[in-house]
């Protein structure tokens, strides 16, 4: 009866070629999917981002995040959705012609800070002709009214361009 101990003098050789094959394929696959995007950002949990054919990559972390139930500005909750209407609660926008006052104040502060950073030596504000853009991460199930309120608020705070975060469609 054969046993392990009987052929102790024989050299055991491990065939590592299949393992090398698997490693090679894995490396090839990982190198293909390796991302050289300037910014790496994970989609907020519980939020579904729409799919787009855009080729532009995300270049900054989203400032405004609209989950299924609440609006966040840099991880700070600024407004909540009314589940009955699918819109913000009336108190959030009733005194500001449809804009969201809390978000406006935060965006205004951010815009002023950005301007100060751009003009260190007291240059006039009019010199800055490029409008500021705001990156937003919004759940795809929301209605346009939500997007419009956020855009209106940002416009009032001095942001005229918007970068809407999407998932790139695979070619």
């Amino acid at each position, binding site marked *: 009866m054969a046993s392990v101990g009987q052929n102790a003098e024989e050299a055991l050789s491990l065939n590592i070629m299949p393992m090398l094959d698997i490693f090679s394929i894995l490396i090839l696959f990982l190198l293909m999917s390796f991302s050289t995007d300037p910014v790496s950002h994970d*989609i907020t949990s519980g939020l579904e981002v729409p799919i787009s054919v855009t080729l532009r990559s995300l270049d900054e972390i989203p400032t405004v995040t609209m989950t299924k139930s609440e609006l966040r500005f840099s991880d700070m909750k600024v407004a909540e959705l009314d589940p009955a209407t699918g819109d913000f609660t009336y108190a959030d926008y009733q005194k500001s012609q449809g804009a969201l006052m809390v978000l406006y104040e935060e965006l205004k502060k951010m815009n002023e800070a950005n301007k100060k950073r751009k003009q260190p030596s007291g240059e006039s504000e009019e010199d800055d002709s490029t409008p500021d853009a705001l990156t937003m991460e919004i759940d795809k199930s929301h209605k346009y009214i939500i997007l419009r309120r956020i855009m209106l608020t940002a416009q009032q705070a001095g942001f005229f361009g918007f970068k809407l975060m999407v998932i790139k469609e*695979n070619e």
Partner: protein
Amino acid sequence: MTRKRRFKKLQEYQGPIDLNVMPFIDVFSLLTTFLLFSAVFIQIGILEVQVPFLSNKVTPEDKPARTFKIHVTVDEETIEVETFYTPDPRNSKTKKFGMNKRGMSRMHDYLIEIRSDHPKTDILSLFVDKEVTYDNVIKLVDAIKFLNKNDPPLPVANESSDESSRLSSTPNLTLYPKILMGNVLFSDYD
């Protein structure tokens, strides 16, 4: 032992040649681990849109040249594309499409026709009803902004000098690089 002797001994060796692959496997393992940690399986991108804003720039006193404009108005069921001139005479033309995949595709083809006829107009205003879902807005922006692989090339490349649109558009890949969300400032919020 000198190098010459060692080489001579190696030349005289007749036994089996054994290649030590262990360092090779070590390198592969490390590379795999590094790549697995840094792998991004979902590619995140951005779509750029703008909102109108008031400017205090002094307008030239000359009589303004006639400008060609495109307005796309969308509600839950229809897409309406209106082309017109300002100032009057307006010479307005309107075409309607269904708010579905087929309608968006037909609208895209119509916009290619318009862009081919008016290559210098690279901006389009989008008016979206408040009940339209954000997902559909993105699909619509895709159909307006980008050319498909099978689309015919546009006769003139985008002449935009604006930094953001220059970055966002590779020549002949975009249809209308600048999209203005037209009704953001309207006051029908209640």
